[in-house]
């Protein structure tokens, strides 16, 4: 069989996939909006329990990582393999740092008994249960996407080393980049909705 190559088609496929992800999270945002409209007070109080500093740090590093990925694509287009690899490695490290932060954040919440099903939480009233339920579900699924992103980056780095991804064929890198920006996009909305409401 003749192997046919269609970068634009591949990119289009990736975008379509991103749409499914957007709607998946979109529905969680719908759920969030509904419950917030029912329990505005509890959601404010819940927001106060979250650590704004931690959230801001994570936002900043995620944005930085988005830039490094975008830059690595530019580097690849210019044929600068080494720079591309360095930038991707930085991204990977940031992704891991993000998860470490998340781990500590979640850990603290578990300690206070805000995790689903904890007896302390059950006493706090419906709004708070819903807030933390959503918090864990939404940041949890987001974290899962970060994990997938990490796996994709490892693969891409490996392929670049083997010169399977190179200056004239880098659609994998581009698509992985798109995926990573999606993760960033979602966080852009998660962050104010959970951490910043007062």
């Amino acid at each position, binding site marked *: 069989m003749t192997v046919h190559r269609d970068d634009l088609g591949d990119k289009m496929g990736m975008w379509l996939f991103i749409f*499914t992800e957007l709607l998946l999270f979109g*529905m969680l945002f719908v759920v969030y909006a509904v419950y917030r409209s029912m329990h505005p007070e509890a959601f404010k109080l819940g927001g106060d329990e979250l650590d704004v500093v931690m959230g801001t740090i994570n936002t900043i590093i995620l944005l930085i990582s988005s830039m490094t990925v975008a830059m690595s694509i530019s580097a690849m287009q210019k044929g600068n393999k080494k720079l591309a690899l360095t930038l991707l490695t930085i991204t990977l490290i940031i992704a891991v740092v993000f998860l470490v932060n998340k781990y500590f954040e979640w850990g603290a919440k578990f300690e206070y008994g805000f995790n689903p099903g904890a007896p302390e939480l059950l006493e706090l009233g419906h709004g708070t249960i819903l807030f933390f339920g959503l918090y864990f*579900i939404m940041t949890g699924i987001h974290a899962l996407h970060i994990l997938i992103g990490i796996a994709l980056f490892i693969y891409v780095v490996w392929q670049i080393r083997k010169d399977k991804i190179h200056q004239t064929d880098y659609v994998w890198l581009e698509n992985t980049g798109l995926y990573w920006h999606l993760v960033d996009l979602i966080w852009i909305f998660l962050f104010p909705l959970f951490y910043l409401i007062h």
Partner: protein
Amino acid sequence: MSEANNAHNVSYLEYKGQYKGLLAWIFSTDHKRIGLLYLYTMLFFFSVAAILGLLMKTQLIAPGYTIMGPQTYNSLFTLHGIIMIFVIVVPGLPAVFGNFFLPIMIGAKDVAFPKLNLLSWWFYIIGILIVLTSQFMGDGPPDTGWTFYAPYSFRTPTNVLPAVFGAFVMGFSSILTGINFVVTIHRMRAPGMTWFKMPLFPWTLYGTAWIQILATPVIGITLLLIVAERLMGIGIFDPALGGDPILYQHLFWIYSHPAVYIMILPAMGAISEIIPVFSRKTIFGYKAIVLSTLAIAFVGYFVWGHHMFTSGMSGRALYTFSFLTFLVAIPSAIKVFNWVSTMHKGSLQMQTPFYWAVSFIFVFMIGGLSGLVLGSLATNVHVHDTHFVVAHFHFIVFGGTGYAFMAALHYWFPKMFGRMYDMNWANLGWGIFFIGFNTLYLPMFYLGIMGMPRRYYDYLPDFHGGNIVSSLGAWVMVSGIVIIFANLIRSARHGEKTTEKNPWGGKTLEWQVDTPPTLENFEEIPTIEKGPYEFED
């Protein structure tokens, strides 16, 4: 590669690749083989689920215990619904005929992502297997109905998890098919095939693919939330923890209503192919049909609330949804009118696929018009969750999608298998089936108007009469189906061989390639100059 195995002249059925036997199929990335994989899987599970339906009807032939207890009955309609919806009619025509014919009809050698295509079949099979494990594990088969309504779905002790998770995995399959088709249609049409020279079946697949992409993730996350609810007691839908069970219904139907258009659009596409060919006449109102397809796909996204008219939603939401529901009925009406007009002054060839197509229009009208009764607020309150609804959706899902599937199967059969079926048996099977079908489902409308609720294992004696007729109809219909399937299966293996490229005189590309198609479909990609249905005077 030896001469005999040249991709250009060896039929896809005989091509010898890397693997042999069964493996040559389940690891093949050829869109035609994948189409057949879906077909076989579906025929098998259709038979299973159909037998479940038959058992239910047998139970309902008389009030009280007939052949099973309530727990069995409840798990039967659950499994019946899950299989019929998620395994048969949602993937249905796109996965079988879309995979097989979309690339050929637009002049391409394969879909855009052949490996993804195979992966999607694997997701499908794995999803089915997961659903099936729910039947055999400790706590008993799930008994929630295919709608998994909260909070019952996490109160019941039965195995809801695997069923929900299996449906979730099948969602991936649906999404991947959708992505594949959109990219294929955008990027791989043969030179000269502009959008408005594309046949109607690919058009409907395009609309469907968009719904698959935009709606399926919704059911994905909803089912995941049910899983989270059962495993962790997270409280999103649990009224005891503050959750709102009605929100579950919103999310469920935000997917499942568009899903009914996933089921019907490709069916309409197949009918739009068959009618012009057997009328020897170009399709009437090509553009109107295309636009109505897109309109259904778009508006269909915003009418989900008509499944929830008695759920306790706000009054304003109720009439908004009712209004939108009526709007979405119009494009379907336009299609019906165009089909009938296509037959006007044609030269009608009375052959099996055409019988199926014409009877499709009839049963689809009944199903669709009963949808109008359901879409109107006052009448819906009375017949919601009664057998009227059951009749509506069997008429439109089985009558619509099912009939179109049969029509498509009889239409494309010679091309797919390079063999012909026995026309007389096929027509006989169709006749018996058609009679049985109407005897089975028409009484359900009556039962519903009289007030017999659905998902009732047992009923008051008042409803006995209608149920007897209906149950007898089920048995008539089975005889029809058995004849049809037996004929097709026999013919696929031993039927008369044919290499005739164009047995029905169609004008679309699939009738210009070899029978059965070669591995790469086209020796040379054709350049398109004419529209798809240009029959000469």
